[in-house]
């Protein structure tokens, strides 16, 4: 379990190490390295998801380790309050950025192990502080350079810690 303390409250993620072992190991390593401390939720879209863990409040990207394999074919669905890894169009490009679904996003689920069908790997869910997620999803957003849907007031991840 990982506890996130944010500028808008705390929430806890319970990771599914059985269904997404590599993703959980990778994510936990970033937590232990303090990577998420000082990052923000830089992309917030109500009715879709909130995404963070990659940029600091000045929109500088934090350095990451090598990308990980996509474990989306694990049967877990991108339903509301689940957490999944963000990535580029390359199916196996996830590093540190993650997102929390705020709706049942079927179109993000794995369909087939081909370029277009890989989907996004769900590796856990929010088991405490769902109200904080719901508070974050409705913040006012705007554009910041090439980025859209950026919260006007930064939503900062102050710390992320593994709970014993």
């Amino acid at each position, binding site marked *: 379990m990982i506890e996130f303390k944010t500028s808008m409250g705390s929430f806890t993620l319970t990771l599914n190490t059985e269904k997404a072992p590599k993703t959980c190991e990778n994510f936990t390593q970033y937590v232990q390295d303090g990577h998420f401390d000082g990052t923000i939720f830089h992309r917030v879209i109500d009715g879709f998801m909130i995404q963070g863990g990659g940029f600091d409040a000045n929109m500088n990207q934090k350095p990451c380790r090598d990308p990980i394999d996509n474990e989306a074919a694990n049967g877990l669905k991108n339903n509301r309050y689940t957490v999944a890894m963000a990535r*580029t*169009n390359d199916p196996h490009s996830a590093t540190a950025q993650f997102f929390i679904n705020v709706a049942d*996003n079927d*179109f993000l689920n794995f369909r087939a192990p081909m*370029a277009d069908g890989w989907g996004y790997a769900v590796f856990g869910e929010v088991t405490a502080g769902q109200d904080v997620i719901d508070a974050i999803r409705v913040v006012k957003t705007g554009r910041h350079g*090439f*980025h859209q849907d950026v919260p006007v007031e930064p939503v900062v991840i102050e710390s992320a810690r593994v709970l014993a």
Partner: protein
Amino acid sequence: MLVLSDLHLADEAPALTDFALGWLTQSVDRHVPSHIWVLGDLFDAWVGDDQIGLSATAQRVAGALEGAHQKGVSIGLMRGNRDFLLGADFAQACAGSLLVDEWVGLLPDGTPTLICHGDGLCLDDTEYLAFREQTRAPEWQQAFLGQPLEQRLAVARQIRAQSETAKATKPSEIMDIRPSAAVDRLKAMGCTQLIHGHTHRPGHSALGHDFQRWVLPDWEAPAPTKDHRRGGGLLLTQKGVQVLGVSDF
């Protein structure tokens, strides 16, 4: 001026991007064009300029065009039928600007010419033209672009799958421009020459008695099983139109 089109670049095919950008950089160094104009379908699909954040290919293209711009080349991007949502943000990333859908003017050799992607001239493909009308409407585009990026990518996948099925059943007479429509348009615009892409049927031919047209090639990544390479462009100079091929690249 160097013009090319129908590259259909995508993240799934990095070898094609290597090939096309390699040729482009070499052509810029060799011919020193004043302009590079991409006449549509630079990308196989484009769902909004925020796609540049997710697409290594888009970033490479922007980098290559920006590099050419630094060497003094002006960059112009025309929208095609696949990348009709290409916008000002992406053009800016390329240090270029968006071109109108139909450019009319005098080429360096003085020939009054109409330049377009070509999909608007396929008047016999009524199914496509209906789709085109729907998706060019500002309200449709605004609604579409309002959806999250991942959702737009999912929709694009669906549309492409449907289009591939439909293409397999379309007679090839439909899948070209309507020559009479082209002649009418050239007459209306006071031009004698047409340059376009889209049909993937490269060549130079007469249109009626007084008009001519040049069709740009589409691109395909070179493969060891294929002798003939697909790709290239046209160089428009004071001496006229010169075909630039890819066979010696």
